[in-house]
């Protein structure tokens, strides 16, 4: 299984995360499969609670105890990194995988100057003297578009606005030239007018440095603008995976289809945006079959009985029985019909 060059930069396989509670083990991620290729931007979308952020945290080993990884594999640059010791994982974090969190107002330590936070990170991962690290810190601030960068090294976080602080956070994530950046809702806490700027900075820098990005967000606009590929998550699993254009215009999974349908289009007058009936199942209350079955307009008995795996959909791959030869044609069918015809056209 050690395919060297053929392997994507980050390969997550059947990742399971759970929370031990008094009433038993509560599964949060039920087998997440996703991968990020070199230099690629992967958008991870889904409703709140779908497990997007948990996936990001699990990859870098920063799950809040008592939550813990319960199975699956995480491969990074051809090396298996789940189950590495805390110290080995720490040397990957910040150095080879950078992280950006949601709220720039609380991501920076209020008691230290941003210069000190930058040089500290640089010197943790790179063999550099104090002067060289300070020069690099100034260059990084300049790259993320902070005016008069070198003179701002002595400033404290509270002296920056939210957008400027997120630029500092991006500079911190880029300190050691990581191969991958995991950006967890990097613009959600920001003013709408600032969001585009921050996404622009992130996109430009990652292209320049050839850094891949795992962009976690529920903002489809950001995804459409930024990502190369999209993974749609629902109830702790990836249920669709494909290029942005395909997923946005022609989603295969009924859930992604509904999700894309709920994006308003500029220039088109609509009364009420379509919405998906019901709510995502609570953690620990995910049904046995397809997790989306209770809300799905296309549901069949097969969906309630068995959980679908990823299958080739119309243009993307989706975890939906529609794309299986076992898909029954008629909505009222009671059992799985083994001899169903090629099932692409339903719905």
């Amino acid at each position: 299984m050690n395919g060297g060059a053929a392997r994507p930069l980050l390969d997550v396989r059947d990742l399971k995360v759970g929370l031990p509670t008094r009433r038993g083990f509560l599964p949060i991620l039920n087998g997440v499969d996703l991968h990020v290729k070199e230099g690629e931007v992967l958008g991870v979308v889904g409703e709140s609670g779908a497990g997007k952020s948990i996936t990001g945290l699990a990859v870098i080993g920063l799950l809040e105890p008592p939550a813990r990884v319960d199975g699956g594999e995480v491969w990074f640059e051809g090396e298996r990194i789940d189950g590495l010791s805390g110290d080995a994982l720490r040397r990957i974090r910040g150095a080879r995988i950078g992280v950006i969190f949601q709220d720039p107002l609380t991501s920076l330590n209020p008691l230290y100057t941003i210069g000190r936070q930058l040089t500290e990170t640089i010197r943790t991962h790179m063999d550099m003297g104090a002067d060289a690290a300070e020069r690099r810190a100034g260059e990084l601030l300049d790259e993320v578009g902070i005016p008069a960068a070198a003179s701002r090294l002595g400033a404290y976080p509270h002296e920056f606005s939210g957008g400027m602080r997120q630029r500092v956070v991006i500079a911190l994530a880029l300190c050691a030239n990581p191969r991958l950046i995991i950006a967890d809702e990097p613009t959600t806490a920001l003013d709408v007018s600032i969001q585009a700027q921050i996404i622009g900075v992130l996109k430009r820098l990652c292209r320049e440095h050839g850094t891949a990005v795992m962009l976690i967000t529920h903002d489809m606009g950001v995804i459409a603008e930024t990502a190369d590929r999209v993974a749609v998550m629902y109830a702790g699993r990836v249920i669709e995976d494909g290029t942005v254009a395909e997923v946005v215009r022609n989603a295969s999974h009924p859930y992604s289809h509904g999700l894309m349908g709920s994006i308003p289009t500029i220039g088109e007058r609509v009364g009420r945006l379509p919405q998906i009936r019901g709510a995502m199942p609570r953690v620990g209350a995910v049904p046995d079959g397809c997790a989306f079955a209770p809300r799905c307009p296309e549901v069949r008995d097969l969906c309630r009985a068995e959980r679908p795996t990823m299958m080739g959909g119309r243009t993307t791959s989706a975890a939906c029985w529609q794309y299986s030869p076992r898909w029954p044609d008629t909505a009222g069918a009671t059992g799985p019909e083994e001899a169903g015809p090629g099932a692409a056209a339903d719905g």
Partner: protein
Amino acid sequence: MFSYLVNRIFQAIGVLLVVALLSFVIFNYVGDPINNMVGQEATLEDREELRERLGLNDSVIVQFVRFVANAAEGEFGISYQFQRKVSDLILERMPATLELVFVSAIFALAAGIGLGVYTGLRRDSWLSRFVLTVSLVGVSLPTFVIGILLIYIFSVTLEWLPSFGRGDTVRLGTWDSGLLTGSGWLAIILPAITLGLFQLTIILRLVRAEMLEVLRTDYIKFARARGLSRRAVNFGHALKNTMVPVITIAGLQIGTLIAFSIITETVFQWPGMGLLFIQGVEFADVPIMGAYLLLAAIAFVAINLIVDLLYAAVDPRLRVSAQRGTGTA
């Protein structure tokens, strides 16, 4: 920063004047000072003459101003009991109390912060649980019980440490120091632990609670995500953020160390100001009581002033004069 400091100093002077008024009231109206000073045989004329000589016939305001002026020069009158100047008595006793307070404050801070950080980081280890359980004893037992308990164990049963006094002292100018002799150090151990145990417990529990709080914050998560070492995250980033409340409480607690050294000094017959105060109370020695009250107030006010200055040193957001331009995005 400067105007802030001046402002604080004016507030401190205000507090001291109020305490001086209390002290003055005690001195003048708790019993008749003349009665306390002269003997049974003094005639009415003698009394009247002394009253005139001490200025007790002047108006209350003039007397208060005189009291404050004298106090500012360290002049608190003459002890009824020892027939000596109160200022001399206090100066003699002050080194013993200050050394005791110093040692127990260091003990309480070092052990309190150390154990607080440990129990905050290793919150489920059996040692943390043990420390927290024992610390409950520190909060709930009164000081004199702890002192007597320690004397019983270490002086009476084990015979390791002396049960009373300061040991040998070395004279440095006007300062009698017990910290330069072996017997002085042996003698200070039990009283310092007794005096500091309560503050240690408070600081320990506070540091632990603050650590747990800070470790949950985003910037700690982000510091970990940046791959900083455990040491840099826990001590560089987390501990410093717990310091503002800890400094507040520690400052107040050191104030109470000075004020409450009375009990410990009595239990261990420690020849400090607290013991002097207790003797003063027993003999209704009002000048000593008034002077002690004022000194305790000065200690509290000075410590609070230092605490305010330390805030600004720890937290840049509190540096009022910081006027750097703010970036906009």
